[in-house]
């Protein structure tokens, strides 16, 4: 999944350079220039891309490291360990 997502992100970055609409003055829905509509859609595509990254590429190991450190700190410190048990109760 990760290589596919990496390709997807590169593709999205490339899609920003929409040379095909560079000189196109046509209007979408009668009042929105097509180049503007494209880039508004691009912003939505960016949000979708970020949602995909969050779903499949989330750096969960960073959160786990916090848990390791917090747990080790509590076990090393009796006062914090006691506070931790109280909190859990």
């Amino acid at each position: 999944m990760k290589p596919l997502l990496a390709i997807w992100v590169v593709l999205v970055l490339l899609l920003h350079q929409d040379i095909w609409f560079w000189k196109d003055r046509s209007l979408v829905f009668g009042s929105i220039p097509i180049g503007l509509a494209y880039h508004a859609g691009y912003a939505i595509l960016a949000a979708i891309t970020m949602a995909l990254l969050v779903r499949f590429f989330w750096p969960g190991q960073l959160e786990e490291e916090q848990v390791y450190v917090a747990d080790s700190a509590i076990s090393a410190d009796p006062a914090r360990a006691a506070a931790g048990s109280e909190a859990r109760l």
Partner: protein
Amino acid sequence: MTRALIVFAYLAIVLYIGIFAFRRSKTSSEDFFLAGRKLGPAVFLLSLFGTNMTAVAILGSSGIAYSRGIGVFGLMASSSAIVIPLTIFFIGTRLWALGKRFGHMTQVQYLRDRWECAGIGTFIFALTAAMLVPYIIIGVMGGGQTLEAISTVDGKPWVSYEFGGALVALVVMSYVFFGGMRGTAWVNAFQTVLFLCFGAIAFTLIARSLGGFDQIMQGIAANPRTGPLLSRERMPAEEFFSYMFIPLSAIMFPHISIMCLTAEKMGHFRKTVIFYPICIMLIWLPSVYLGVVAASQFPGLRPGEADDVIIRLLTANTGVLVSGILGAGIMACVMASDSQILALSTMFSEDIFAFYGGKKRFGEQAQVWTGRAFVVAIALFAYITALALKDKAGIFELAIRFAFSGFAALAPIMLGALFWKRSTKWGALAASVWVATCVIGTGYLTRASDSIAPRPPGAPPARAAAPSAALPQVASSTRLQPDAPLLGAARPTSAAPRPPAPPVQNNPGLGNLFLRNATTVTVFGYLPVLPMVVGSALLMVLVSLMTTPPSRATIEKYFPSNSEKTRIA
């Protein structure tokens, strides 16, 4: 006068928010500088976004769209919509995790420890501080000029530039002083809501008053002089491409990276990165669109005047109340310097005061009060500079423009630190020196070539015209006009917005190496940010490979192997 009263009410609200935050605060430095790393998801998203939004989003973008067309959205907004969330996702989350693990409160603390070198941190501290100070000064200048303009009745300002600047500096200083990061984040969240509501209300009211946009847009398309505004014909492809690199600066701005450390949980980043592009679209899309609409409503404005088109549209199509809310919105933009002041204060108290033994010697409370004293000092310095150099805003605008490129070019250093074990302090130092040299060099080349800068007939000098790149945050608001000219809006001319003049060679002996356009010097047509980022990345890699990496212990600390994680657990 009503507009000024609404703005005063706005200032009172943000001041109250700061004082309210003070009541919730504790005495620790982490609480003052990072809101105790306890910001919730909504405030985190809104404040991170608000910290990054400046006057250019609402006012500047419409001014540039007026003369250059709809391409401004792709140039500045949709590029940011993908690049900024990506940097927050890859860099921001890691900074957050490292800050939580090792107690870092600034980028410099991390870089010093990561490369086992105090000097590299001090150099980067000096470089980032130097690139940040012009923002704060121009924020105070913008505040004074905005209040003066808003309060002007019959050509007479009720609030002078000096008093307006003092008031803005005092309000910002007060809520940062009392509220610290918590107050600043809450104010920024409030401002973001104001931006979003203001954009929606303004767009709806103008659309209703003009009877929809269909006919206007078709009229613009039919006119051969305004037709190019509906495409990117007035935008060189090299410039459009270069702009993809500018948003790399966001995460390297100290106030943004420090803001990343304030989230209570890493999960808060999830919604932030997903909704960030949508927020950008909601603010920029109406602004750019209205800028193009203004080309048919107020034709013939010169580049400097065009920055006010959205205000002209509002004044011509809405009442004084909406106009007053607009004034508050502008103040919100101008006062974006709050987080920059706090970031500088955090950097000073952590990277200088605490690093050189102040915290050990005098205690944590003294460190917090040092930070507060620094907030007062920097606000005073900004105010005095704003008074002394009242007519030299162009210098600071120029400095800000190149600061964007400078911060963007620092991104490879952070990427190297976070993702590449083999990166070294010497690589980082070489890249930092390159960035500093380029910022000074491009600034010098641009100023030295002002006399040959191409400009359309009748346009003001290059820097004043500046619908530029990187966006002096108050460039637009500093050009606000008093009531009467705003209401008088349209000039008696039917001329369409002028296309930008083609660039000229800076030094004919060097061919197209350095080209000068209306606002800046380019390298073969590309903005300086492109060679700066590429050069910084290359130096980081090459010099790191030639020098000794950090000790094994440090590498294990920042890149723990699985066995190390098991051992810790």
